[in-house]
């Protein structure tokens, strides 16, 4: 749906393409330089890629929350990162209690399942409260209004957690779970000079499982059908007897449950929990959702994994400072929005929506 903005020769289009070309050439140049230089071995890239897949799984799970809500309400739930944070934070108190009572040691699998369930529940409650109080009254307001509300809600949630639970950093306890002699949660193994943490595989597999479950839910169940109908056309869906409010609530709940689960998985290897922990993953997950095409469920999954991999390997591949990791994510977001606003798998959104 691109249109020319001014006259037959579009100057801005030319400038934008020029910028894109420069960036592309720079990336290729650095890539070749690093690979030819051969400073890093395969094992470096492999361990970065494994970490990237786990991180990407987390991004993908959060991104699904953005995409589901966007698909139905065409709003960016800016506070979704805080939903992720909230679940992780509340679950911290549960897992810390399990740790103190020794239950985490004696029965780690059950303890972690309970922790994940707590996080999911807490996130769902937060998201439903948010939807009811902040978003529902604004469903028919001009588009910028709910976005500003969401920014406000995000700020409110962050500082509410800070006020209630203090400013200190909470640290998830170390967990160990032995399966076939391998500590799949807390272990670090040296394989041919390369440090491998099985937890990354566990996180990756859990993320994929949850995504499959969501896919089945959306494609095969009656509820999923209702969701797709509402996403297609709210008014017609209502005429067909679908309770739109209920579908919206369910969508928020689904997204939040995935974010809560992602939060515990994230905390299992990242350990630290603070009231600001949701912001950066939230923005990155949004980037992932846009990368894959916002409103598109498989797109969000793909975008998440792509972003995770890009972020973990690009700094080394391009010979950049690892401090610039976040610049890569934001840069990717800007570039994708400029050159392919519909994302990798995105459907063509009309200009009014995008």
């Amino acid at each position: 749906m691109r249109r020319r903005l001014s006259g037959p020769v579009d100057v801005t289009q030319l400038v934008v393409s020029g910028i894109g070309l420069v960036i592309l050439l720079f990336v290729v140049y650095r890539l070749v330089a690093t690979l030819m230089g051969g400073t890093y071995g395969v094992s470096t890239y492999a361990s970065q890629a494994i970490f990237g897949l786990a991180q990407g799984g987390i991004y993908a799970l959060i991104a699904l929350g953005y995409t589901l809500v966007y698909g139905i309400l065409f709003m960016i739930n800016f506070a979704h990162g805080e939903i992720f944070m909230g679940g992780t934070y509340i679950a911290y108190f549960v897992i810390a209690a399990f740790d103190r009572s020794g239950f985490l040691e004696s029965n780690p699998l059950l303890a972690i399942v309970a922790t994940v369930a707590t996080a999911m529940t807490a996130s769902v409650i937060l998201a439903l409260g948010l939807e009811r109080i902040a978003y529902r009254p604004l469903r028919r307001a001009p588009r910028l209004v709910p976005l500003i509300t969401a920014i406000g809600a995000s700020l409110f949630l962050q500082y509410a957690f800070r006020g209630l639970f203090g400013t200190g950093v909470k640290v998830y306890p170390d967990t160990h779970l032995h399966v076939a002699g391998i500590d799949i949660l807390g272990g670090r193994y040296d394989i041919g000079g390369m440090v491998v943490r099985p937890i990354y595989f566990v996180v990756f597999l859990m993320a994929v499982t949850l995504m499959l479950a969501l896919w089945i839910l959306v494609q095969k169940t009656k509820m999923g059908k209702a969701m797709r109908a509402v996403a297609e056309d709210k008014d017609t869906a209502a005429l067909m007897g679908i309770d739109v409010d209920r579908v919206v609530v369910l969508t928020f709940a689904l997204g939040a449950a995935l974010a809560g689960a992602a939060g515990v998985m994230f905390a299992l290897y990242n350990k630290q929990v603070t009231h600001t922990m949701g912001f950066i993953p939230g923005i990155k997950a949004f980037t992932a959702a846009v990368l894959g095409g916002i409103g598109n469920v498989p797109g969000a999954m793909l975008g998440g994994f792509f972003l995770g991999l890009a972020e973990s390997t690009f700094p080394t591949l391009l010979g950049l400072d690892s401090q610039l990791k976040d610049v890569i994510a934001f840069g990717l977001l800007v570039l994708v929005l400029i050159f392919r606003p519909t994302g990798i798998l995105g459907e063509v959104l009309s200009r009014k929506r995008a």
Partner: protein
Amino acid sequence: MLKRSLRRGALVGGVLVFIALIGAPAAFAREPVVRGVVTLSQLLLAIGALLAGSGAAPATRTRSTGAVVAAGAIAGAVCMLLLALLALLVSAVDLRQVLVNATPQLVDELTLGRGVVTGSTVLVVLGTVLGALGGWSTRLPAAISRSAVLAGAAVVVVGVLRDKGLAIAEAVALGVAVWAVAYGRSRWGSALATRYQRVQRRNSTMVSIVVWIAGLFILLGLPSILGTYGTSVLDLVGLYVLMGLGLNIVVGYAGLLDLGYVAFFTIGAYVTGLLTSPAASTQLGLSFWIAWPLAMVAAAGAGALLGIPVLRMRGDYLAIVTLGFGEIIRILVLSDTFKSVLGGAQGIIEIPGPSIGSFTMMRPQHFYYLILIGVMIVVFVSRRISDSRVGRAWMAIREDEDVAEATGVNLVKYKLLAFAMGASFSGIGGAIFASWVHSVFPNSFTLLVSINILSLVIVGGIGSIPGVVLGAFFLVGLPEVLRSFADFRMITFGALLVAMMIARPEGLWPAKSRRRELHLEVAE
């Protein structure tokens, strides 16, 4: 009706419990409003009970006064009962492992220092009485109750601002005076306004000149009235007004939501630092007067540069991309990659103040006049431009891009102009900021600054110049003066943004066209 009372009481009580658990009572206990009688934290509880009571009263006038008072009393009692239960729970179980503010001090504050059992009883009784009062107040003529609210608010604000609170006599005098003025205004205000309008119409230039001169004198005299600390707060407010007016052009006039606005502030500040500081890597040591126009141009250039790629984006995508841009600038400034030029986390120090001849601006009072001139120029430019052809083009873009383009508005030109102008105001703000604090550090330029500016524009009134000024005083000045409030600043901002969008999206002091537009509901 009972159900309504219970619900209202539980709602207000729940909010109060939340406020208690984020630590407000303990912090506000240090703020006496009326010396020796009541502190801000006690007032908070009282206001809650009053609100519960007045909210419980049915909207219709069919019920008898007795029923309304009873409804209010029940709501007030329920509300305070929740707090009493919280006090009991906190004193019985140690929750501090989880809820950091569930301290014995909180119990003390909630039970008015009278022990758990007596205190709780007193609390509930007081709640009942205040709730009944709140319910009864809905039966008073609106002129009386509204003036009473205003008088109460005045006493609270003045009491909090005074270090040790007001004396009882002062409080009573102030309350009665404000009440009388407010009541008089609501009774005879319209007559006075007509009178004033008549005078104004007869010799309009005269009146406006008198008003302007009086205003100017007050503005010029403020630093000597307020002292050094008050003036430095005013300086900060002024800087935020500068930036707010810049963002107002982008968001308010052209309708482009920019969340990375802090980037231009950063650029303005760093350009000034690099050009003027002898300690910077460039070692130029130029004068501030050469640096600020360059800072402005650099910021405007960056604004236009950001504008080019985002020209085709709308609404929320634009918001996220600009947010990303702001973060990229901050991370780049902070990173080791550019450390040799920009100083990394150490920033740039030894930035000199602006000097005229041998006189160098050092004190907040000096900067006040510099900032005042800047604000006045920016207000003038904003006003003139909003009514010009350019301003009308921006508003057309804001209302509907496609229609604007179809009627011959050059989207590329006017969007870039909006970005560049907004950014240049922020660049000036950055330049003054750098020379005011004599240093720039990357950590002064976080996303929160962008959100602060956006909040003040929105709370004040999108697209409205007096709204931005009011918003800056409200959101920047007030928290700075109320020290005990500092911890609750961001959470209040968040709640305010949500509440404003739901209840009053046009802001405290809206622009006329905006009010009309937002009250016409737009269907998706």
